[in-house]
């Protein structure tokens, strides 16, 4: 495991990722301005999640990392989602 090769992402790839991220940011701003109704919050969070996934995968190189790290990151986000969900069993049914 010593000589783990680091995959090197090119500048061009990084620029592409940034452009996609900026596009998604614009999209979420627009979505809010246009008031797509009850799903505004859900949409904003969805777009944010997509952005976060992209940052994790490319900028933070998860794509090139050991599998165990990807499992851990996924597990941590899942755990947090469950904790929020369980808390809301209280608040939604009050």
């Amino acid at each position: 495991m010593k000589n783990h090769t680091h995959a090197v992402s090119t500048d061009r790839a990084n620029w592409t990722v940034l452009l996609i991220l900026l596009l998604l940011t614009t999209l979420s701003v627009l979505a809010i301005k246009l008031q797509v109704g009850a799903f505004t919050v859900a949409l904003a969070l969805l777009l944010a999640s997509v952005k976060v996934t992209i940052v994790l995968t490319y900028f933070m190189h998860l794509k090139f990392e050991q599998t165990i790290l990807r499992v851990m990151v996924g597990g941590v986000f899942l755990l947090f989602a469950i904790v929020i969900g369980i808390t809301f069993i209280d608040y939604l049914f009050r």
Partner: protein
Amino acid sequence: MTYTSSEPLNYLNHKTGLWSWLTSSDHKRIGLLYLYAITIFFCAAAILGLLMRIEKMAPGQTIMTAQTYNGMFTIHGIIMIFIVVIPGLAAVFGNIFLPIMIGARDVAFPKLNLFSWYIYIFGAILGLYSQFANGHSPDTGWTFYVPYSAEASSNVVIALTAAFVLGFSSILTGLNFIVTIHRMRAPGMTWFRMPLFPWSLYATAWIQILATPIIGITLLMVMAERLFHIGFFDPALGGDPVLYQHLFWIYSHPAVYVMILPAMGVVTEIFPTFSQKPVFGYVPIVFSSLAIALVGYFVWGHHMFTSGMSYESRWFFSLLTFIVAIPSAIKVFNWLSTMYGGSVDLKPPLLYAISFIFLFTIGGFTGLALGSLATNIQLHNTDFVVAHFHYIIFGGMGFGFFAGIHYWFPKIYGRMYNFKWAYISWGFLFTGFNLLYFPLFVIGIQGMPRRYFDYDPKFQTGEFLSTIGAFILIAGLAGMISNLVYHARKGPKAEANPWHGVTLEWQVPSPPPHENFDEIPVITHEPYLFDKPATK
């Protein structure tokens, strides 16, 4: 400690002087630094406990005022929970034995390890300081429930900072252990060839990492509330006091498993050694540890059944609480089966380990009475709860710790304690413990609330018996600690493997050399095979 030059070099004597200890990144020395600090704080908090018991010997004021009493149970809780029990087993035995048991020379980040000890000491000193600063000890209880903690005039902010700092130390230790286990296992040591104590530390470490930050941010929010009048929890500013309880217990319930899981790991090492027989059900024990860590994450609400939570979440949390009891039951049955058919040798470590099973069983079953909705209504916040968690934490984690220190003592110091002395101290400890806490179950059911300075005379019999138990318990503690302290220096030389254990720590000299192994061992089979040598 003085060693003659004729002794072989080991981690205790390869460098000498206080400075060499305070700057050592050797995991074994750091473990001992934790051990000494924890012992001192444990004794201090135990004395506070005794004083509270004396106060409650009779109704009304006996030796202290209500204010003193309230401050005392707060600081007793803060010291015992944050300074003694949470770091406790993991930081002491985890540090000393995790790397040896997996065949590594040290933890993954040795300097970070030392750093977390310093953070720990800093937090501990802050905690003590909060008791004395401005002449006002904090009096909120270790749970810091708002709005009281946001309003009380005592040193709450210092105590909160101390808990925050201690949490940070706990996180760093957990982080270190996870990486160590992932990256530093000896060649051939697959996950399922790893001994069970490291497995329990692994499950524990995940809780430390993923739950502790929640209490960190919660305490920061309470501080923000006190210092900047931000209203997260204060209803006058739109805050929600029950939300605080959610956040607090999202951490503090898993924290109970940070306390008990390593203790389970320790006794799991002890049963096979003293039965000379493989662990019964290695895989089920591994998965029960992981299940406890995972499901233990989702049951925090059972501390809040009377708080005004929604009906749905009350029964949801109750159901999950019962589910999380199953892995603990599995462990108990596996331990018993490990001894069954073995060649059982009742040496002090095993005596403490079976006391652990007995006390933990009582603690566990009373926990079920607390997890059941109907009975919880009667028992919540009574002395029954106090008795229950002392059976779990002191009877479980505490006796697990005592079992561990008697088990590994010859390895740590290369010397042996006095058995007779150990048996007698155990007798006092065990009797005193049960006399101290069992009466609290009874008066708890009758309705005696906890954290009461004064009480109805009808509860006096129970309270009185409990106080007598406290004196016996303290006598047992004094006997046990003096036996160990005295023989750490003056005891007869111990063999490298006095109990005929098969895990890796018994294959190195006692005390172990500075870097544990001259040559990293190669592991060829499962642990706990008593008819085969541990390594090739």
